[in-house]
């Protein structure tokens, strides 16, 4: 089932994974560059600049998610419901995890 999901929705999962990594890179720069963790203004600026730079990609990921949802809901054979649910759980879980990482280390 997971293999089927990966085969069917790989582009959705991949684009969300890239967006999640981008989000962590932007909002928790200390994970990638520990030397900046002691900074205050520099850390805030780094986050500000990085969030600005990843924003277009986040918008793109949102559009892809919406397109995927519309596309799958409009033509959904019964067998697809499980893979769709797995994809949804993966995406939602991934974003929840991203949020937790940023909250803890950002």
């Amino acid at each position, binding site marked *: 089932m997971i293999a089927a999901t990966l085969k069917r929705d790989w582009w959705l999962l991949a684009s969300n994974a890239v967006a999640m990594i981008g989000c962590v890179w932007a909002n928790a720069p200390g994970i990638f560059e520990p030397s900046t963790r002691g900074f*205050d203004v*520099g850390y805030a600026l780094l986050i500000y600049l990085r969030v600005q730079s990843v924003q277009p990609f986040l918008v793109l990921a949102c559009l892809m998610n919406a397109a995927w949802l519309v596309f799958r809901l409009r033509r959904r054979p019964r067998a697809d419901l499980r893979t769709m649910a797995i994809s949804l759980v993966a995406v939602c879980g991934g974003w929840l995890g991203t949020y937790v990482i940023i909250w803890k280390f950002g």
Partner: protein
Amino acid sequence: MVRDIRHFIDGAAFDGASGRFGDVFNPNTGEVQARVQLATTGEVDRAVQAAQNAFDGWASTNPQRRARVMFDFKRLVEARMDELAELLSSEHGKVIADSKGDIQRGLEVIEFACGIPHALKGEYTQGAGPGIDVYSMRQPLGVVAGITPFNFPGMIPMWMFGVAIAVGNTFVLKPSERDPSLPVRLAELMLEAGAPNGVLNVVHGDKTAVDAILTHPLIHAVSFVGSSDIAHYVYQTGAANHKRVQAMGGAKNHGIVLPDADMAQVVKDLTGAAFGSAGERCMALPVVVPVGKKTADELRERLVAEIPSLKVGISTDAEAHYGPVVTQVHKDRVLGWIEKGVQEGAELVVDGRDFSLQGHEKGYFIGPSLFDHVKPEMSAYQEEIFGPVLQIVRAESFEEALALPSQHQYGNGVAIFTQNGRAARDFAARVNVGMVGINVPIPVPVAYHTFGGWKRSAFGDINQHGMEGVRFWTKTKTVTARWPDSALEHADSSFVIPTMR
């Protein structure tokens, strides 16, 4: 919830526990964009202890290695110039191009500090007596401090810590609480450039922090730039607590315009020097003294024509000549001085009080104002306004024009506009002011010379940056060494002071 601006102590952001904060505004919108923590005496002490712990290691680092840190710091600041200028403008209000100039003038002192091994070399006399050599060396003082104003949050901290750290001191900086982010960022970059933890610390604060610095027994020297009354207080209190102090105060710089001056150039120079950075510069030119009625009338006519072409805009507007002043309190103070000038009988030729920028009605903008027929006895002439206000004081003769800046309570800078070399030379020699420009409206000396005013513009006797800066931040040790030849000289006690025979 606005962000907190924290102290920077021992190489990391430090959360203060005073529970007291100062609002940091966005002058373009009038909104509070952050709040800065105000330090307690104990928090200042923590910064001083961090600096003291770092001192021995830093002072014993050879000067060439210290210079390399300065080289790296310069590289980092240059690489981040856009980001730093935006940060500065967002809290001060000056336009981005002016913020870059602010940072660049500070970097020029860092460039000077890159050559510190040469500047630190001492003197040597071989054979001052039989078997006697005398040599002197300059040694760092220990922990030193700088208290800096809001109007140049990049340049003035770099003036101070650039030289002070390069000669081997460790530094505690207390920047203005109105635009504190850039100095913290500079400290972070100094760390990134290779300065050890504790070499440059930043504490934010008000009078509590200033007094803690002025009375702390481990701080050996204090450099201050601000208003004259506070400068006087800093000088007195610091000196009473055995500190070396240089305290720069206010200014009321005059521009003397002789009848032979290139009037088109004068008007361009004057508008830039009087209104640039909304007049919030200690080297602004808020008083112009045309000599002779004809010169005065022509100058006034040209200024009245030129001023409407000035564009007041938000800091990020690339076409704006200047932006807002720093706070609403400061705006009210400037408006109060304009009103005072009117009440005292000066003619308000151009009135900038009602200026409002569409879409930024709550920003602290003031339009350019021009006064004519200002008299020396008016308080609006005698005091520093620190806003976009230009005053014309008419003089009948060169001698009368020379007397105005010479007799004014402030003596920071002065400029003369003329094509007559003899008159300019005579003026430069006789005027009772510390920095003179000849056809230069803002005569801030280059980094390898020194900055300092006279009279109530500066308390203390050593200027900022250049070789005077090296002298201020170091103490001289002189060694007299004798290597007698015991076979040739008699061992004998001497009970009189040694003299050279």
